[in-house]
């Protein structure tokens, strides 16, 4: 037996009218993981999170949080889960501290001030504790959303694009805080459109598209699968690429070309061929693929065999 799963999703399906938002999702997030959920707009990430949070009811399939079924054992499942919603929402009647005290109370916690102070401190909200929610800037409101998700110290924390519209400083302090929570044993699930963020933080990544998981692996494997490949960008000041190279060209724009090679060892012979054919290279860059490259290719369906681990 492996350790208990923090989140387990089996054959989850959800339809909105004629749109199949989730089309049979199977997923397991282990306790203590820092897990990334990536995918283009409309892939179904928020829908999946909503089902885990009990905001949305699945048509088929099953989901559990720390072993508690989100439908039949919803009270325990919800105690285990903290969700930072994608949309900024707030109650304009209350101050930051009131908002957090109320949220604690909903979870049955009556004397939570020490922890609330700690969260406020870590999220840089201490000076705003008495301010009305209405008076906060967008980024500040988002910090409060993060704080609200943490009031009951949930073992599993899901953040749905928490850094959208947030300044660099908060982004870094937020990640420090979330990393620390992860080191303390909290399971973190993160959706983001900043791929470098996912690459830096997540141990494993699921890529979704059209309501399905189309790639699921460790971040290292996903990127490593392409490590042996290189991307060459070059601009010619004279001459042209030899026709024999057409197969390697990904895109061309005037005299600028992007080529993909299966092996870094092919770079040198390639450049030699270009020169032999009378080409003069004005600019050159050679890069290894990153998560963004993997993402783009996965979404195009050009990267095979990513469903594993």
């Amino acid at each position, binding site marked *: 037996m492996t350790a208990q799963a923090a989140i387990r999703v089996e054959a989850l399906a959800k339809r*909105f009218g004629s749109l199949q938002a989730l089309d049979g999702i199977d997923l397991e997030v282990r306790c203590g993981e820092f897990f990334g959920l990536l995918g283009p707009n409309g892939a179904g990430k928020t829908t999946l999170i909503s089902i885990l949070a*009990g905001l949305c*009811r699945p048509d088929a399939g099953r989901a559990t949080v720390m072993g508690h079924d989100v439908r039949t054992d919803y009270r325990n499942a*919800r105690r285990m889960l903290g969700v930072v919603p994608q949309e900024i*929402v707030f109650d*304009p009647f209350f101050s930051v501290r009131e908002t957090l005290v*109320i949220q604690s*109370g909903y979870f049955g916690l009556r004397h939570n001030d020490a922890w609330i102070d700690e969260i406020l401190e870590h999220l840089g909200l201490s000076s705003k504790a008495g301010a009305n929610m209405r008076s906060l800037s967008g980024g500040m409101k988002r910090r409060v959303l993060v704080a609200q998700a943490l009031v009951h110290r949930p073992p599993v924390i899901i953040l749905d694009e928490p850094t959208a519209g947030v300044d660099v400083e908060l982004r870094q302090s937020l990640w420090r805080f979330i990393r620390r929570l992860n080191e303390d044993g909290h399971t973190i699930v993160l959706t983001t459109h900043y791929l470098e963020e996912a690459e830096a933080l997540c141990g494993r990544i699921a890529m979704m598209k059209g309501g399905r998981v189309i790639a699921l692996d460790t971040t290292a494997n996903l990127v490593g699968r392409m490590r042996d490949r290189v991307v060459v960008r070059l601009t010619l000041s004279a001459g042209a690429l030899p026709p024999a190279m057409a197969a390697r060209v990904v895109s061309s724009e005037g005299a600028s070309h992007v080529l993909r090679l299966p092996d870094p060892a092919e770079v040198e012979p390639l450049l030699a061929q270009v020169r032999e054919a009378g080409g003069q290279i004005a600019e050159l860059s050679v890069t290894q693929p990153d998560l963004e490259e993997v993402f783009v290719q996965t979404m195009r369906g050009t990267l095979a065999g990513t469903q594993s681990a």
Partner: protein
Amino acid sequence: MSRAFCTAGFRTLFVKELMRFWKVSFQTVFAPIVNALLYLVVFAHVLEERVQVYEGVPYRAFLVPGLVMMATLQNAFANSSSSLIQSKMTGNIIFMLLPPLSHVEIFLAYVLAAVARGVIVGGGVLAVTLFLAPVPFMHPLWIITFALGGAAILGAMGLLAGIWADKVDQLAAFQNFVILPFTFLSGVFYSIHSLSATWQLVSRANPFFFMIDGFRYGFFGVSDVDPWSSLAVIVGTFAVLAAVNLTMLRTGYKLRT
């Protein structure tokens, strides 16, 4: 159901709902009291000489319990319905849907906060109108029972309407085409004995009639219907509304997609 009263979740939601209207008490408490006072002044002035409903009771005094009840009912309804529709429109309803609150806790918190606002406004109207039109207090227990019962029914109706409505105008329609006619035709301004036999029968199909009639009995010791029968209607109405509300909250109707 009794266990839900002692949970921190219930208490928090209840107190939050109280704070919500208390923070804007100028609109939610003071304005309705002024409104009711205007009704009393105008109607009493126009009709004082012409209408006598009960022997020896001036029309002005007859009007007081009706106005108090009307204010209680309208404000109880407004409290739960507006709170819910606002939460839905702004999206902050998720803060209540994410925690492990049970449907019973949510129901009780909303209804009891609505009762609190209804009774506070009703009490305010009564306190102010007493200066203009003294009324006897024959059976205080009946007064309290009908005030609480009526407010609970309207609080539950407000919750139901707030869950059902997708837009503010749907809620306004519910208020204008259901709540307002039922209140006005319930005998706030008259006794149904002054109506034709047919309309008397129609009035008896209106649960609001029993709330106001029973409430008035508490003041004057006179009513169109026996207060025990009125109480039975009120308990029955509340039971039906509670069952519908609890079912909607349990299944997540309109709240959980």
